[in-house]
């Protein structure tokens, strides 16, 4: 059998092409792989105890907290003003509750007071009411040092000040009852109301790295008076949000 040149060349060409292709495959000396990383950082705010609460002029504090503790878990910080009748000769019973705020976004701190409830006795117009419990924010100071961002915090004008100061309340000349100015008693906080606001508080840092943050001092006070005998109770809720 005779073979033409074409018959010989074509298979050889195919074979050569095959080898070239194989050689090209052999030349691959690198290989790659990849890992994709993603994550998210949401706005985050928190309110905690800014240290131990204190009380003067009578009363007690139970379930007191250390800086960084939750105010309501596992126990709830409770202020008992004690006897606020005429037998208490102090000018005021005053509780100071430090709060610590931290955030990675701007924040607004609000406060609300629940309706007063009475546990004993027959309440009347002379019983202790929300209007008889003074309230004020006396300072908002960022801890210095690691992790705390610089920024200016604003205490709402109506909430700013010591409720026991002369500027924040006085004896009503007609009724004789001690009366606080607007914003200086719990009666003005039956709905959640802004008390402090400001820019982000924390730089990027590990939450457990320290207990620093924005420390806000809140003050609650009752001036002992001839209130109707009985016990009373309310609860105050602090809420921080963005903004």
């Amino acid at each position: 059998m005779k073979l033409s040149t074409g018959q010989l060349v074509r298979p050889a060409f195919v074979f050569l092409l095959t080898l070239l292709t194989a050689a090209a495959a052999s030349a691959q000396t690198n290989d790659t792989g990849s890992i994709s990383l993603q994550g998210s950082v949401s706005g985050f705010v928190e309110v905690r105890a800014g240290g131990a609460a204190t009380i003067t002029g009578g009363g007690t504090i139970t379930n007191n907290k250390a800086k960084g503790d939750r105010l309501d878990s596992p126990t709830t910080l409770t202020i008992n003003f004690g006897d606020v009748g005429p037998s208490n000769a102090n000018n005021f019973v005053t509780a100071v509750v430090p709060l610590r705020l931290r955030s990675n976004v701007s924040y607004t701190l609000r406060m609300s007071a629940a309706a007063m409830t009475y546990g004993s006795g027959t309440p009347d117009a002379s019983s202790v009411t929300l209007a008889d419990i003074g309230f004020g924010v006396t300072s908002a100071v960022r801890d210095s040092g690691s992790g705390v961002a610089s920024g200016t915090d604003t205490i709402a004008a109506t909430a700013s000040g010591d409720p026991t100061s002369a500027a924040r309340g006085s004896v009503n000349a007609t009724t004789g009852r001690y009366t606080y100015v607007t914003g200086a008693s719990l009666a003005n906080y039956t709905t959640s109301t802004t008390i402090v606001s400001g820019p982000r508080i924390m730089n990027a840092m590990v939450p457990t790295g320290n207990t620093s943050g924005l420390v806000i001092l809140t003050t609650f006070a009752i001036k002992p008076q001839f209130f109707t005998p009985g016990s009373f109770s309310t609860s105050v809720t602090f809420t921080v949000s963005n903004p």
Partner: protein
Amino acid sequence: MKGRLSLIISLIGVMVLASSLPAAADPDKHDIGSGGLATISSTAFGGSVTGNPGLHADLLVTVDFGEITPINTAPIIKVVVPVAIRSRDDYQISVAVTGTLGTEPDALKLSDIGFGIQNLRSLGDRARPCGINSVIRTPYNNDPTTSVTINPTTGRAQYPSSLANLATTPIIMNGPELSSSQGNWRRGADNGYAFDVIIAVVPQWFAAGAFNLTLTFTMSSGPNFNC
């Protein structure tokens, strides 16, 4: 007769080539692929990791750390990605980082993601023994979840090696030929080595935002490595 012989040879050539053509990512001299099941330590706040754990699979893993603000109470989020490597000559592995991050000073940075290499191990009988002498380059030979510290000045977590190091020190490993010439050169289950890439993030007060990064591992010819 000669023509038939040529034709037969070329057909055999095509068949041999076809059978020796590896799967998509099977290389001829260097191969990097999945080394097993990738894991993440914290899934409570959206963390997840996906990838094919098979030793025949490409290295193609997606890690979502989830939420990394303080709402995530995990002290650290640890991701372990096993990587399999095979080679027919001296090799090196480099890693490049691309992607997007926030620009604020308090946004997550490359230095906030710990990155280390651990647990180099043989895949089996057809791995060359000398491969275990491969060198994990400085500073990557650590587990960032155990070597993490908190900067006393800033309060930010810091690591001996992080993704930030890859910009200046992209080569993470090098070593000798890893795979025996026995058998076919394919992505086998016993003809190379594996190591763990460990990636870690500590939830912190980062600026709000999102990030998306890609780590590209490239295995190529490396410096001469005497065993």
